[in-house]
């Protein structure tokens, strides 16, 4: 009873570094979710091909029902997923977490914390502040908008 189930979603199609033998990588192919997103066949094929290369388990099911069922399996102690920025996906994760408070939803670390708060400023305001941290120097030639 100490397997971790990693619930991959379309913003996180990669195994975590800390995955151990016996842990499970699972993707839930939720037709209702994809209907809402209305993605082209090409987009769906990209997701599917990536999943095949990961060799993860794919369940075609409603997300909530699939997590309900997986969470009752005796050898699974923890279910882990990652935050999503897409509102539809994010709501789905939150709805699942409400039913399964033990679901761990991990944050995604930003490249650099720009400390953005409303009212939001333009890109170059932040770029000038983080440029040195990211590139080691300041280059005023990078302060212009594309023509």
């Amino acid at each position: 009873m100490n397997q971790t189930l990693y619930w991959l979603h379309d913003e996180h199609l990669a195994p975590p570094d800390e995955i151990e033998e016996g842990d499970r990588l699972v993707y839930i192919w939720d037709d209702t979710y994809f209907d809402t997103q209305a993605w082209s066949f090409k987009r769906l094929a990209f997701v599917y091909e990536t999943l095949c290369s990961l060799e993860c388990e794919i369940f075609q099911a409603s997300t909530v029902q699939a997590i309900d069922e997986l969470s009752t399996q005796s050898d699974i102690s923890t279910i882990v997923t990652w935050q999503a920025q897409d509102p539809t996906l994010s709501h789905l994760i939150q709805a699942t977490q409400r039913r399964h408070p033990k679901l761990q939803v991990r944050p995604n670390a930003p490249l650099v914390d720009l400390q953005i708060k409303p009212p939001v400023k333009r890109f170059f305001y932040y770029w000038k502040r983080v440029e040195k941290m990211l590139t080691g120097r300041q280059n005023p030639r990078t302060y212009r908008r594309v023509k």
Partner: protein
Amino acid sequence: MRSRLAEIDATRYAKTRNALTGAVTQLSPYFRHGILTEQDLLAYLNQATDADQATRLIQQLTWRSYFHQVHAAQPEHIWQDAEPYKTGWQAHDYDPTLPDDIAQGQTGIRLIDQLIRSLLKQGYLHNRGRLYLAAYVVHWRRVAWQAGARWFLQHLLDGDIASNNYSWQWVASTFSNKPYIFNLENARTFAGDALDCEHASNACFEATYDQLQAKLFPYQARGTKP
């Protein structure tokens, strides 16, 4: 993924990335799906490339991070105009639905139809191609950016709501100080052989920026349409 990273030529990127045939990475679908992280690329550039050469690429990557953090700071605003249009037109002057000829790539304007075909067939467009297409949709056809953004999200393999919607708003001028437009001269400079710029059907772009400005935004000088 390491082999994809090894193909990056940061020096050529800095010099050519603005051209449709330039040495861009085409890594965006991998970032979108978490197959590669921004940190992976930054770490690779730090160890494999001269910092000076990598600046442009790191800056572009920071645009992605910026859009994501803007979205995280105000997630409920993702489909709303961040600011009023600065085109002289008001939000209700823009068509909320995407016309069929655009959706099908049958506008009759050669360079626009070529870009739409790439979007539908490859699920990818160079940044400049996206700028041209978005500018055409919003400014030449006066369609609301939301309709165009929804369409891009259906087809782009890297379709990412934050980068996409805020980029559309940047073109529209609801998240920038002025609307983005282009003319045929600009397309000739940056498209190379990638687009058939000389076709007669592209005539609506054959003008100076002042002429286009006057034609597309006749009320801009006054602020808004009377």
